[in-house]
Every structure is written in structure tokens, then in C-alpha cells.
């Protein structure tokens, strides 16, 4: 369409320019992405060293290089680091953060400050995981990345290491959920005009589905970690068979998170490959609709397969068969993807770059991992393979051969866009071949070793087992793999200082990020592009998506439009994210060392930062957002979408708590059980809460018609009713204690207090939120035009009410009826 070559506007400085302090308070998605990338690469070095330590220890039988305890710490931290601190931040924090807004034609993510907050919370969580080093009774976590109960209970693993692991993962979970919330909202509401869902690049699709997976899969992990926290600190018995509980509960919660987690890591990698292959084959992605379909189908299925991690726990033949069937079904959408990728390359005019090498390597290595995955779905075979090196081989083929190959390919692909410099192709190809040799040499023999019975997680093996040769072979290969990464780091560093300057569109790309200069200016697009086709930039260059026309492409870049550039309002930088994350770190530390003042200090910092953020209104495009939302995302306001996504995630959180209550309620009743619950009192509470919802509706109506007086009256009423509910609950709890129903009395009481207590905490948060609105109202900062702020608080308030109705029915009424 653009026939005239247009010069790249040089007058806009790249996002990398600016003073160094700007990296601490930045909320630019590209800078946040770079921060994520750099920290993840540092952790990759750490995790890689841990991997090499494992291989050195296993080099010969009865090796004394590491003690059994040190070995446990090393393999635990290798797994935890690689999953939470390397792969997820690289895929989501770095790649998605940088690329998604550029690909959908947006200026930033939906909530830029929350994006920065995600990063700083991630960093404090990552630091937290490693803090055990600095304590005498500490040490690193040593219960495996899966942290199986009841190994993690205080009586079996005393020290502080598991405390650091538990709270560290909770902190990381907050960061990940915020990221998921952000990307979901960004993709739903901020697409450029004309970019319908079916025109989104495949990478954006995979991040959209991944965000949904994050929002719905992390709550079970959070609940599991909270239970563990309570067991370790408050003396509950969520995972202790002595008290009638079952340690298997942890496995259910963990794998209910853990299997979707596999796809949280795999889907973005699939998306990357779906970008790389078409670009270097110069053909559109084969079967785009089927690719989208299979991504959604994988997400659908991923919630019904967690049990295949637990075949060996004795769930019984029925459950085993169910999970086997659902697990095998996943092979169908995955197969669709593999064949579509092959068909994309088939008949294309290929450009054999390093990025393309890695993408092709991905298809082969990932398929090997997929095939051994199908073996695991078969129960009798899995029972033989469980806890052997065969499993280690399988998931490394998926996570390294699959995900890591995609990440490495993407490095070569998107590096020019991020830094403005090219990577060295010769070094790249050397790295590729060393990676292939080292990777297969390390992990393929593990299939044999596993079949011969070598157990995983054991720090050494006997000389007579016949495993020595292949272990030595693997260790040598692992060092070759390490060498490959060394070459990559050399390549990255030399490119930063010496690399060839990258043009805007070095690969003849298909998507919008290649239409802007490398590196892009801080505000991305001067004018928001209009999208008329899938592969939007390709269509702009060549006129149609499918043609392989050899006409020269128009030079990339937006037309220089200084007038438009002056009107771009970018968000103000903010120090609140980094301060808040610091508060979270202090809070967690206070919990582990049981120092109340530290917890209070951290809590105060968190609280004040949140209030500060609430009142630091973003100057960032109220106007631009509204117009963008109206044109691209179906007219929904992004804050509303964000709150809905948050409510969805919260629903899973409460569903998990309620399910645990239902399972545990009638087990091991040492205390009075449901008999002491007071229906009249709680009926009154229920009534009060329902009435408060009504007042909330009135407050919103008053705001919408601009009635300040009644707005204050109804808001005040809602707050007071919320406080009455909380007071009722406090009275109820003390009276229950008086009747002998203490927090740790039995399984019923601990589940009851956890569930109802967490609901109470949500009511308290709602009351604080409404109080902030009330203050804003008295400061005259809540006019008609900000009715949405009241509406959002209202949504949350109604949600909390609905949860209470469910709790009241299931926990109070039903238990009373059945008890009577």
C-alpha cells in the first residue's frame, strides 16, 4: 500500500536513551522487558552452574564431590530457578512484554505501573528464594521444585530454607498473576484499529491464552503454599496424616497448577516458533485458524490432566484411566501444530539464519519430548518410569529442546529490534551446533539410564549398576552445552559494543514491530497503525498476505509526524513499584524470622505505596486509551476488563479453598464441628452484606447522575455495613473459640477459619477500597466522569458478596442441615 519510500524518523530518541536513574522508576514496557531479560540471564548463569554441579557429582559412582544434602539443594534450586526465574521471565517478562504491544500496535501495556511492579516483585521474590544462604540455620531449599508434602513440614525439614522457598514462591506468584492480568487486558482492549482476533499474530494469541492459564492456574498453587505456610507457622495440619489429612492434597493442588504451568511455558514458545518459521520461509503460517484452535484446545485440556503426574500415588484405576485418556487427547492439538509448522516450511524460500536453525531444531527436539510424553500418559508404562531418569529426559526434551530452543531462536530474531545491533551469525551457528550436540548428548542417554532403573533425585549411584559410562558421557556433553551458552554470552556482549547496526526490518518481517526503527522510540508508534490483514506489515509492504512478489519493499518506518508526536502523552515514571516490592520483601523476611516489627514496617510500606499509586493518577492517555479501546477492543474499558480478570482469578482461589473444606470437613473431628456455628448471627451478617450491595448500587447511580451528597451518603453506608459485617465476624470468631472451636482444633476448624477468614480479609480490602473512594469524594475528586472508579469498586464488592452467599450456603446452612 505504501508505495513511497519513507525515511526513518531520526528525531525521536530510542527508548534506551536517557539517564540511568530512569531504569529504576521506568514504567516503559520495553525497559521493563530489558530489566526482566537481564535478570533472567543472570539467573540462567546461576541455574546453569547448578546443572553442571549436578553433572559433576554424577560423573562417577560413589562420588563425594557434593554431600547428599548439598545435592538436594542444588537440584531443587536448579529446577526452581530455571522455571520461575529463567524461562517464565524470559518468555513473559522479556519477550511478551517487549513484543506484544509492538505487534498489536499499542503504545504500552494496559497497566504500565503494574507492569513495573511485576518486575520488582519478581526480583524481590527471586532474591528471597536465595536468602537462606545468609542465615546459619538457613541454607537453600532442598525439597525439590515440586516441594512434596509432608517432606516440607516443619518436623521433617526444620530450618528456614523451606520458609524462604514457600514465601518466595508466593511473592513470585503475585508477580506472575499481575503479569497475566496485564497482558490479558492489553490484548483484549488495546489492539490497533482493524486488528481483529483472527488477525492477531500467533505469538499474541499464545500470550493471550497463556495469560488466561496464569490467571486460572496460579490460585491453586497460592492456596497450597498458604496451607504449607500455616502448617509450618501456625500448627495446622493440612498435609499431616496424623491429623486425618492427606499429603496427597498438596500434590493435587500443586499439579492442578503444575500442568497448566507446563503450557504457560510451552505456549509462548509455540507462539515464537509460529513467528519465526513464516518469516524465514517467506510464507504465511500454514493453517492459522487450526493453530489458534489447537492453542485454545490445549488450554481447555490442560486443566483435566494434572493427575498424570500422580499415577504412582494410588488414585485408583478409575482416576488413572480418566487422566490417561485426557492426557493422550492433548497429543491431537499438539500434533496439529507440529504438522502445520512443517507445512509452513514446506515449499518456502528459506533463509538459513541462526534463528531459523533453532526453530527447525525446536520442531525435532520437541517432537521427541512429545513422544516420550505420550508414553507417560499410559499408566502401566508410567508406573515403570516414575521417578527414573526417563522422566528427566522427557521434560528436558520439552523444556530445553522445546522451550529453550524457541527462546534461543527468538534471541537471534528479536535482538536487533531490542538493541539496534545484529548478532554474529557465524558464532550463532557454532552455538547452535554445540547446543544440539551438547543437549542431545546430555539428555538422550537419560532415556536408557531411566529404563535401566536409575532413580532421579538421588545424589549418587553404585559402581556395579552399569550406569557409569553414560553418566560420564552426559557430563561431558553437559559441558559442551555450557560452552554453547558461553559462546552465546560472548556473542551478546560483543554485539552490544561492536555489532553491526541493525536496520529497521532485517529479516523482511511480517508483523508490526518491524515497521518501526530499531530500537523503537519510547512511545512506539507515532501514529497508531491501521490493520487490514493478517501479517499486517507484510501486507503493507507487498499488498497481499500470500504473494511471493519480488517487488522491493517500501522502507520501514512511520511517516515523521511531529505534530502527532507532540500530542503523545506518556505515563509518568513512578518509584512506587520498587518501593512496594521492597516492602513485600521486608514483610516476607519478617515472617521467616518471626520479627513482628519488620512485618509491620513492610506492611506499612506496601499499604502506603498502594494508596500513593491510587492517588498518583496516570497522566497516560486517558484520551488515547479510550479511542484505542473503542476502535480495537470491542469498546470495553481496560480497567473494567482488568477487574473482571482479577475477579476470575479470585474465583478460582475461593473455589480451591471451598473444595478443600468440602474434602476435609468431616475428617477427624476432635472439636465440636459444625454444631457450634450460629445460624441466626450469620444470617444477620448475610443480610447486612446483601444490603451493602444494594447501597453500592445506589452509590454508583448517584455518581452517574453527578449527585455528590447522595454519593457520599451511600458510599458511607456501604463502608459502615461492611464494618458491621467484620465486627459480626470478629464476635463470631471469639464466640466460636469460647465453644472450643479453635483454629487448630481439627481439620474442620482449620479449613473453616481459613476460608471464612480469607473472605473476611477480602471484605476488609473492599472496605479500604471504598474508604479511599470516600476520601476522594470528600476531596471532590470523584465527579461524574470518574463513575467508572465507583463501578469497579462495586464489581469487586458484589463479587465478595456472592462468595459470601456461596460460603453461607455450603459452610453454614448445609453443614447445619446435614448435622441435624
Amino acid at each position, binding site marked *: 500500500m505504501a508505495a513511497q519510500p519513507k525515511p526513518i524518523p531520526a528525531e525521536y530518541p530510542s527508548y534506551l536513551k536517557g539517564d540511568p536513574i530512569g531504569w529504576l522508576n521506568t514504567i516503559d514496557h520495553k525497559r521493563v522487558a530489558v530489566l526482566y531479560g537481564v535478570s533472567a540471564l543472570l539467573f540462567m548463569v546461576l541455574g546453569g552452574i547448578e546443572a553442571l554441579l549436578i553433572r559433576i557429582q554424577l560423573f562417577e559412582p560413589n562420588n563425594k564431590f557434593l554431600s547428599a544434602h548439598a545435592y538436594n539443594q542444588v537440584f531443587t534450586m536448579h529446577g526452581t530457578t530455571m522455571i520461575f526465574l529463567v524461562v517464565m521471565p524470559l518468555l513473559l517478562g522479556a519477550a511478551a512484554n517487549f513484543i506484544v504491544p509492538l505487534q498489536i500496535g499499542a503504545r504500552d501495556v494496559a497497566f504500565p505501573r503494574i507492569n513495573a511492579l511485576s518486575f520488582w516483585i519478581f526480583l524481590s521474590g527471586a532474591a528471597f528464594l536465595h536468602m537462606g544462604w545468609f542465615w546459619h540455620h538457613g541454607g537453600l531449599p532442598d525439597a525439590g521444585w515440586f516441594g512434596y508434602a509432608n517432606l516440607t513440614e516443619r518436623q521433617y525439614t526444620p530450618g528456614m530454607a523451606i520458609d524462604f522457598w514457600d514465601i518466595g514462591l508466593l511473592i513470585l506468584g503475585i508477580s506472575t498473576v499481575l503479569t497475566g492480568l496485564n497482558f490479558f487486558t492489553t490484548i483484549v482492549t488495546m489492539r490497533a484499529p482493524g486488528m*481483529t*482476533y*483472527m*488477525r492477531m499474530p500467533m505469538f499474541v494469541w499464545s500470550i493471550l491464552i497463556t495469560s488466561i492459564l496464569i490467571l486460572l492456574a496460579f490460585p491453586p498453587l497460592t492456596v497450597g503454599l498458604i496451607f504449607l505456610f500455616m502448617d509450618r507457622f501456625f500448627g495446622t495440619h493440612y498435609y499431616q496424616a496424623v491429623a486425618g489429612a492427606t499429603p496427597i492434597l498438596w500434590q493435587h493442588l500443586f499439579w492442578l497448577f503444575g500442568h497448566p504451568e507446563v503450557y504457560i511455558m510451552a505456549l509462548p514458545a509455540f507462539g515464537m516458533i509460529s513467528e519465526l518459521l513464516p518469516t524465514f520461509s517467506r510464507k504465511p503460517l*500454514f493453517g492459522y*485458524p487450526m493453530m*489458534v*484452535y489447537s492453542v*485454545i*484446545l490445549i488450554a*481447555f485440556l490442560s*486443566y*483435566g490432566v494434572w493427575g498424570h503426574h500422580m499415577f504412582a500415588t494410588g*488414585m*485408583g484405576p*478409575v*482416576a488413572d*484411566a*480418566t487422566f490417561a*485418556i*485426557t492426557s493422550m487427547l492433548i497429543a491431537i492439538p499438539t500434533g496439529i501444530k507440529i504438522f502445520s509448522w512443517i*507445512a509452513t516450511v*514446506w*515449499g518456502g524460500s528459506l533463509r538459513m539464519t541462526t534463528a531459523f536453525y533453532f526453530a527447525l531444531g525446536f520442531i525435532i527436539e520437541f517432537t521427541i519430548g512429545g513422544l516420550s510424553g505420550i508414553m507417560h500418559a499410559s499408566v502401566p508404562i508410567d508406573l515403570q518410569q516414575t521417578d527414573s531418569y526417563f522422566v528427566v529426559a522427557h521434560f528436558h526434551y520439552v523444556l530445553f529442546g522445546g522451550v529453550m530452543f524457541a527462546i534461543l531462536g527468538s534471541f537471534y530474531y528479536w535482538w536487533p529490534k531490542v538493541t539496534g545491533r545484529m548478532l554474529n551469525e557465524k558464532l550463532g551457528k557454532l552455538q547452535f551446533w554445540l547446543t544440539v550436540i551438547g543437549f542431545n548428548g546430555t539428555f538422550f542417554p537419560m532415556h536408557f539410564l531411566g529404563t535401566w532403573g536409575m532413580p532421579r533425585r538421588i545424589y549418587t549411584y553404585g559402581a556395579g549398576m552399569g550406569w557409569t559410562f553414560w553418566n560420564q558421557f552426559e557430563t561431558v556433553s553437559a559441558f559442551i552445552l555450557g560452552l554453547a551458552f558461553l559462546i552465546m554470552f560472548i556473542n551478546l556482549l560483543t554485539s552490544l559494543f561492536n555489532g553491526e547496526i541493525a536496520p529497521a526490518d532485517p529479516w523482511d518481517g511480517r508483523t508490526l514491530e518491524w515497521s518501526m526503527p530499531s530500537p523503537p522510540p519510547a512511545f512506539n508508534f507515532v501514529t497508531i497503525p491501521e490493520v*487490514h*490483514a*493478517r501479517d499486517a506489515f507484510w501486507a503493507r509492504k507487498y499488498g*497481499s498476505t500470500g504473494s511471493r512478489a519480488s517487488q522491493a519493499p517500501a522502507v520501514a518506518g512511520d511517516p515523521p509526524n511531529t505534530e502527532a508526536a507532540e500530542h503523545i502523552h506518556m505515563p509518568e515514571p513512578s518509584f512506587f513499584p520498587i518501593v512496594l516490592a521492597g516492602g513485600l520483601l521486608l514483610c516476607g523476611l519478617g515472617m521467616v524470622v518471626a520479627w513482628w516489627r519488620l512485618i509491620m514496617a513492610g506492611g506499612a510500606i506496601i499499604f502506603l505505596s498502594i494508596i500513593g499509586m491510587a492517588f498518583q493518577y496516570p497522566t497516560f492517555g486517558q484520551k488515547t486509551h479510550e479511542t484505542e479501546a473503542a476502535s480495537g477492543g*470491542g469498546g470495553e474499558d481496560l480497567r473494567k476488563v482488568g477487574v473482571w480478570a482479577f475477579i476470575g482469578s479470585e474465583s478460582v482461589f475461593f*473455589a480451591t479453598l471451598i473444595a478443600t473444606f*468440602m474434602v476435609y470437613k468431616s475428617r477427624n473431628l476432635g472439636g465440636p464441628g459444625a454444631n457450634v456455628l450460629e445460624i441466626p448471627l450469620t444470617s444477620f451478617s448475610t443480610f447486612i452484606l446483601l444490603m451493602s450491595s444494594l447501597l453500592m448500587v445506589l452509590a454508583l447511580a448517584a455518581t452517574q447522575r453527578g449527585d455528590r451528597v447522595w454519593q457520599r451518603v451511600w458510599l458511607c453506608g456501604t463502608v459502615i455495613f461492611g464494618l458491621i459485617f467484620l465486627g459480626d465476624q470478629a464476635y463470631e470468631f471469639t464466640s466460636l473459640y469460647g465453644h472450643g472451636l479453635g483454629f487448630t482444633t481439627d481439620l474442620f476448624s482449620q479449613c473453616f477459619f481459613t476460608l471464612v477468614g480469607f473472605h473476611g480479609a477480602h471484605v476488609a480490602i473492599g472496605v479500604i477500597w471504598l474508604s479511599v473512594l470516600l476520601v476522594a469524594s470528600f476531596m471532590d475528586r470523584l465527579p461524574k466522569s470518574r463513575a467508572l472508579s465507583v463501578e469497579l469498586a462495586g464489581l469487586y464488592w458484589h463479587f465478595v458478596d*456472592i462468595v459470601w452467599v456461596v460460603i453461607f450456603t455450603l459452610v453454614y446452612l448445609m453443614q447445619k*442441615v*446435614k448435622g441435624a
Partner: protein
Amino acid sequence: MTGAVYITPGAAIVVAALVFVYAWGARRLGGKLARERKILFGWAMGALLVALGPMDVIGVGQRLFFVHMMEHFMLTMVVPPLLILGTPDWMLRPWVLSRPLRPFFNLLNKPLVAFLLFTALFVGGHDPLFLDAACHNGLVRIALHLMFIVAGLVMWWPIMSPLPEFPRLAYPYQIFYVFLLLIPMTAVAAPITLAHAVLYTWYAHGPHPLGLTPMEDQVAGGLFMWIGNGLFLMCVFSGIFFRWIQQEDGNLPGAGTPRRAQLRVVTTQPHARV
């Protein structure tokens, strides 16, 4: 199992009443009743007759739990969509848009309300308290089963509504809605499948046909709900997805070219007619 009466009076009365209302509505309102509509309505009635008749007799009368669960599947997943498809918009409009009923239907048309209502009715209806009562008493059972049909109608309405006044959800939201429906299904099926004891007293006693123990029967029922419903919803999702693609492809450039030609990837005869 032979010799039993498979068409129960309850089934006959319900079906007769529905057919009567349908015929009366068609005559009274006098709109054009397309042949496909009649056929679909006929299918709905057939499915209803099978569910409330033989399935009920075998599932409850002869104490085969898994057949009873199949009956519930028919009542919530098969009969309601067929009923909606079989009823023309002009037959519904006077009811749905009438002054006293319209606010009520407005509320039901909200997907969240529909989802929560269906979840509450479906999950609650499978509580041993109600299900056992229904097994012991034919009238309670008819009431429970009618409630399942109503719950199914409420659930399917937001994605199948034939009335332009109550527009269907947009396709991406339809997909999300179907995804949400996995929750009530799993919430009922998982506890039944994984239970360590027979949950419903009706099925704990009495002789069982087919040589199944009550426990095996319960597991089969739970599994049918879990996998059967899951696969069914997956098919529904697929249907919605490909309709969505069709709609979006219509907006792409070159939409006028024959669709089948797009399927040809590599062709040795570029000018061959498809």
C-alpha cells in the same frame, strides 16, 4: 430388563403438554413454521421421550446409576438446545417481550447470571439430599428433571438465543462461556467419580443389572459425566470456533474466492478446477 413399561405416564404427559403448547402457539400466532423447525422440535420431543421414558425406567427403576446420569446429560445438554432451535422467534417473542416477563428474561440473558444459576441448580440437584429424594418419589423426580431442563434452557440461551432483541454473545465470549461450563460439570463429576463410598442410598441397595456392583456403577456414571460432558463441550467449542473463523474470514480480503481453493497447498496443476 425385558417386560418393563418404557414409556412412563410422566414422560407422556410432559411431551404431550409441550406438543400441545407448540401447536397451540403456532395456530394462535399464525407465523410461518419452517419444516426444519418442526423437525428439530420433533427431535427435541423424541430425545425427551427417550430420556424420561426408557432411560428413567432403567436408570432409576432398575437402579443403573450411569444410565440415570446419561438421562441428566440428555435433559441438560441435548433437549434444551434442540428446543431452542425448534422454536421460531415469533413464537417466543410475545412471551419473552411481554411486560411482566421482560425484566426477568433481561436478567436471565446476562451470561454470568445464566452461568451461576445453571451451576447452582446443576450442582445442587446432584446433592444426595435431592437426588435420593427424587429416586424415591416419582413426582419429586419429574420436578427435578423439569428443573434440569429449565436450567439447561437458561444455560444455552446466551449462546443460542433466536431473538435479535436478546443478541447472542460475541463468538470469543461464547468460547469463554463454554469453557466456564466445564466448572459445574467437573464440580459434580469429580466427587462422584473419586468417592470412596456409594453416595446415593437408592443405588446402594437392591439388585443391579449387568453384573455391576454399585461402586462400579457410580464410577461409570461419574466418568460418563466427566469425559462425556467434557468431550461434548469440546465439540460445542469447536463448532463455535469454526463459525467464528467463517465470520472473520468473510471480512478478509479475497473472501469472494471459493473456499475450497484455499485448502490446496501444493498443486502440480495450477489451473485444475476443484
